[in-house]
């Protein structure tokens, strides 16, 4: 079928296309700029000669980044955090969402429990009380301080809960008649059917743990325990010139090497970029299926 567009529609399409291209460029150009910087020589970068293509191609900064123990250690901390955090967050999300997706008849007190979760999305204890709880429970300076305080994610639970509710009740009823336990019903029927939603939450959670830096700063006393983004934040932030003495200025000129910073940013971004395409197909579908129809 051929659609005949009016002149107005064609003009609209043209402008729409141009606008979207500009928006896309706004997002991608800074990224390309940093990529180009990371592959350029230090001198070319500091004199502002690099735009979107490397000048004096050089791999020095990547070599330096991979030899930098602080960077590698932070990378390791983040990897552990993502793996542990994902496992715990997903387990909690699933086991909280499943019972809450049942009716009040099947799961007494369901509404109250649901509210207990939802309330925390709007009201929090604040930074200092949370900090003191983490300190007094002895979590500070352990990897658990980065994982446990944020392990219950009400938003994710709500998304999954709504998704579970889409699953036809008849499936559960027939499984019950066949003698299946609730655990078995969850594992064999609900989870496989909720794959799109799970993939979406998986991405959300990975990105969250990968990018979150503030809890690393407040709960870790030693920089050796910093996750990657906390480490990067300390390295990249602009120093206050008025407070530097001559020794510090000299040192700064070494580390403020733009190419080195860019290389570290690239290395920190690539893993998350790789994860995206694999889950892309679930990503859009999962969210709409779960929340909109719910």
């Amino acid at each position, binding site marked *: 079928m051929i659609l005949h567009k009016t002149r107005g529609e064609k003009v609209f399409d043209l402008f729409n296309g141009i606008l979207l291209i500009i928006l896309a460029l706004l997002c991608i150009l800074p990224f390309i700029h940093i990529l180009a910087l990371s592959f350029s020589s230090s001198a070319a970068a500091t004199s502002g000669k690099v735009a979107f293509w490397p000048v004096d191609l050089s791999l020095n900064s990547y070599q330096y980044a991979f030899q930098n123990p*602080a960077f590698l250690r932070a990378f390791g901390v983040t990897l552990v955090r993502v793996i542990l955090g994902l496992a715990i967050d997903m387990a909690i999300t699933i086991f909280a969402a499943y019972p809450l997706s049942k009716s009040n008849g099947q799961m007494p007190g369901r509404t109250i429990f649901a509210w207990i979760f939802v309330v925390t999305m709007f009201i929090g204890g604040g930074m200092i009380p949370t900090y003191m709880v983490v*300190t*007094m429970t002895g979590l500070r300076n352990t990897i658990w301080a980065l994982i446990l305080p944020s392990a219950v994610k009400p938003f994710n639970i709500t998304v999954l809960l709504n998704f579970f509710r889409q699953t036809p009740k008849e499936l559960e009823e027939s499984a019950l008649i066949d003698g299946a336990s609730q655990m078995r019903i969850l594992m064999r029927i609900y989870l496989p059917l909720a794959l799109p939603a799970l993939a979406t939450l998986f991405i959300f959670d990975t990105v969250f743990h990968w990018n979150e830096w503030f809890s690393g700063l407040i709960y870790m006393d030693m920089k050796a325990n910093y996750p990657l983004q906390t480490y990067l934040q300390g390295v990249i932030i602009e120093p206050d010139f008025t407070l530097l003495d001559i020794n510090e200025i000299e040192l700064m000129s070494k580390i403020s090497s733009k190419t080195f910073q860019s290389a570290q940013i690239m290395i920190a971004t690539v893993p998350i970029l790789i994860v995206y395409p694999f889950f892309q197909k679930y990503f859009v579908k999962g969210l709409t299926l779960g929340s909109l129809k719910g």
Partner: protein
Amino acid sequence: MKTNAKRSFGLLLVAMMLLGGCAGGNNNSSSETSADTGNTSSSASQTAEQTPEERQTGAYDEPVTVRVAIPTNAALTFPDGDSYSENVWTRSLLEDRNIDVEVVWEAESGEQYDTKLNLAISSNDLPDILNLSSYSQFKKLNDAGKIQELTQYYEDYASDYIKTNISWDPQVLDWGTIDGKLMGIPQEGVNYQQVRMIWIREDWLEETGLPEPETIEDVINIAKAFRDADPENRLGLAFGKTVLGDGFCDMTGIANAMGAYPRVWLEDDDGSLIYGTIQPEFKEVLAVYADLYANGYIDQAFASLDGNAVAEQLTSNKIGVIIGNSWIAGWPLSTLYDTDQVNWLLYPVLPSENLDGPVKVQTLDPSGKMVAVREGYEHPELLFKWLNYSTAMTAEPETAQPRKFHSTATDAEEQFDFQMENPLYVYWNDPMLNFNSQPHVTAAIDNDDTSYLTTPHDESQYASTKRYFDKIEAGEPITGADWSAWRSWYGDDSAFGIMNGYFANDNYLVSKLAGYQTDTMVRQWGNLQTLEEQYIVEIISGIRPVDDFDEFVETWMAMGGEQIIQEVNEWYSSK
């Protein structure tokens, strides 16, 4: 089922409370025991028995633990296996003084450190020695009764060397004194090194054929000529968003040349203190900058440029005139030397044609960084023992071991700044150390005689300056670092030469308030500075006419300025 769920929820709550309570209790008791084991002998009885010498440089009988937090510098490199918590300083302090340094936490200096410190303050978990990054933090802790008085400990335990250097500038101890009690020690005195001088690109000046400048108007004309020669690629003056005070792209230099002293508290003819930014002289400076902006001689986007962005303009050959501090030789000018071998000529701040009397150049106010001791810590004197040790090992001629404690280069590749590894990075060294090195290095090179060098500091600056001359002789390429050493230390027209000239001609102007802040300042100063910057940026960029300066002064007064002027004068007259 319903009751079951309720019961288990209740149990869960109880369990959580117990857990929290137990863990908290354990924590408290463990920190108490560690503090107890730290002090077996009481310090009061020690004072009575010991000679001043023993008090200042003697070791404790038993190891004494001190808990510190460290503002770190990500660029600092350590020898293999070392860190801020374990390095030449912590090992030697334990060995020589029986001081056991325990680093309770570290964070990158600046925002990250302040966040952690504020957390520690709110959760009442302070280190024993407090490294405070602002004067308002110091005042707040004092008002909350969280730090202890140091008057007597300073008297008894600070070494003569340190006392001489601290009281070299009589204001310094005043800043740490609240209600007649010494509550903290400033980390630094007046920054005589943070003062403006004029830097002009040699190659461009030759190209334009203009004579060397004699007044600030000449300098401005040179900047204009540089741009006029290539308006496509060049800007006139270096200028960025930090309009007052970042030391290399602000208005301070030209203001000083015209007799205006923004952000300085100066003595009026009648002996009272007045604030520099709101004086009529500063209005004229604004007019000059508004004119430069309107004619395109400063970047039209200056209000969005931070220091790094201006540095980038410099290194990409866009700027030929800077009125900035001595350290720009090390960065970013040395980078430009590395890529394009650009030499810069140096002049002191030259007076305006309309200025009566000599030029006064204003110094940077001290940062307000303080060190203090937590209330309740049993060994407040330890702070001074530590400060004594730091200067003794790095600066005092008889005891210094610079290779071990100051800095050393293992080979051409790696340089270790041991002095910066010190968990208490505060040195009350001779304030004139850098300034004295310049004539020494110059004489040693001119006469080829190293006997002019008297301190370890002289020697290390001589070595790097000598390299510049050696390379010229050998016809080897000169690096930015060589150039920057030569530009800093050799001759009267070097950076330190010019500053020595400021001393000799009495050009320095130090704010009378410097490191001190009044009560209203602690609350309101940040807002007033923002107001200042906002008006300055808007007037320069033509959004407001220059006459709106009067409106600014009124608003400034109304927003607490008047109150502050009163408080400052009360404080000043009570001294």
